């Protein structure tokens, strides 16, 4: 059971939900950027155990199935074709041995996901198959895929797809996300906090899986934003002394020394994962209490 990588695209990695319970040792969680698209991809092919998928960035991979497999394509619209025939997104599809699945440029969104029934089989490292490129850990040899790599997949047994359906996501180029203030909002002046919540920021080309750097009005602090290092989560918004915010994403470090003005609500992180350089972001305030209520209603 394997898949041959003909061309990898600029950044294609093996990811699952992330590597947890080792952050206190300085090990980054990594994991998929767009959790919603990842979960949908796995659910569509009946994977129930947090199986590993491929995450592709801007331009997708060209892959040859060396054995028959069920697969699903989610996230960014990378106009996938199976032996030249358009592939429907958010649907379980059968590939036969020898067929080629080719992804193109993302027409909408930024990150595309490919789940294969059974999951991509790379060794579990500290409980996860995610690629941590900074520590060269996990995933496929701790790195992004290259042409010629052969990915094993876990045998799927017999399986018939369910009639699970999803609405196709449409990713906007002007994103609005909700932010829970803190944990260091008090480092910023009222005017600085006002700037943050009323301005439009643009995602810099200098952004990656570690963080989205934003261009826009500077956020005023009282006397700098250096702090004694404090823990970081996926979605923490730190403001270095230059005043321009950085949203920390899946490959974030475990702790950092800049004051954090707020944290993006986790339900809104997928929008950021799919945003591209040049897209804009606006922040709206939500209290921690109101955020908690979103879970209670579920």
């Amino acid at each position: 059971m394997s898949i041959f990588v003909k061309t990898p695209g600029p950044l294609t990695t093996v990811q699952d939900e992330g590597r947890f319970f080792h952050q206190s040792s300085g090990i980054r969680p990594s994991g998929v950027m767009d959790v919603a698209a990842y979960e949908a991809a796995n659910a569509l092919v009946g994977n129930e155990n947090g199986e590993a998928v491929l995450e592709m960035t801007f331009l997708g991979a060209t892959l040859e199935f060396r054995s028959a497999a069920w697969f699903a394509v989610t996230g960014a619209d990378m106009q996938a074709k199976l032996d030249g025939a358009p592939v429907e997104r958010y649907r379980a599809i059968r590939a036969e041995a020898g067929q080629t699945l080719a992804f193109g440029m993302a027409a909408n969104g930024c990150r595309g996901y490919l789940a294969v029934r059974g999951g991509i089989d790379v060794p579990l490292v500290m409980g996860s198959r995610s690629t941590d490129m900074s520590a060269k850990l996990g995933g496929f040899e701790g790195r992004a895929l290259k042409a010629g790599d052969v990915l094993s997949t876990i045998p799927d047994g017999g399986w018939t797809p369910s009639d699970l359906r999803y609405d196709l996501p449409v990713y906007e180029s002007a994103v609005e996300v909700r932010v829970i203030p803190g944990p260091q909002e008090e480092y910023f002046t009222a005017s600085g906090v006002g700037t943050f919540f009323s301005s439009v920021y643009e995602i810099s080309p200098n952004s990656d899986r570690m963080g989205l750097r934003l261009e826009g009005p500077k956020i005023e602090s009282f006397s700098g934003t250096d702090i004694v290092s404090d823990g970081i989560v996926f979605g923490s918004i730190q403001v270095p002394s230059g005043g321009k915010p950085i949203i920390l994403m899946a490959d974030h470090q475990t702790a950092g020394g800049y004051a954090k003005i707020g944290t993006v609500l986790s339900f809104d992180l997928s929008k950021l994962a799919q945003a591209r350089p040049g897209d804009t972001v606006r922040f709206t305030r939500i209290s921690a209490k109101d955020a908690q209520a979103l879970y209670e209603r579920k």
Partner: protein
Amino acid sequence: MENMKIVPAGDRALVADFGNVISEDVNRKVNALKKSLSAEKAAGVREMIPTYRSLLVEYNPSMITMQELSRRIELAAAELDGAAAETEKRRVLEIPCCYGGKYGEDLADMAELTGLSEKEIIDIHAGTEYRVYMLGFLPGFVYLGGMDERIAAPRLKTPRVSIPAGSVGIGGSQTGVYPMASPGGWRLIGMTPTPFYDPTSENPVLCEAGDYIRFVPITPDEYERLKKEGGAS
């Protein structure tokens, strides 16, 4: 607990924060709180990240509410007041270190910068027990506290492109060990054969926050022998 505040870090984490300071007392409290909450094994609590000054507690809001978790942290902290935080058991790890020469290329420069002899620098560096305040930056990278200011030295103006794993360095008032090959600007004074990070091991990281480290000078021959044996000291 006095001076502790609990603040949200988003909808899935709370931070128990003891203030913007580096102090052994504060760091002990952080550690003791982590131990107490780990022992409690509350449903919905995921992982905890201790730092110099705070404990970040990740949780699943579908299993435990922010209010409930906050209450549990308050209770755990209240019980720690007084004696508990101070009776922390001291685990001291002896780390063999081969100083100077090709093992610590910057030791000679350090002698010039500090006005001390190489031997004096080694004696001071190896004569201190360093507290592991936290880990971060790289897998297994320890933030150590307690270095003698006499051997403090500014970082290199131009960082090295790659420093081998096991390098022991000084950067400003800090000392530490590179757990894996990495670029870096610290001045290198020695090498340890003891691996601080091994992703293939069941315990991938040697130290945890709250441990103490003491460097034990070894000869190049001892270094090579220990290195061959896999770094076990």
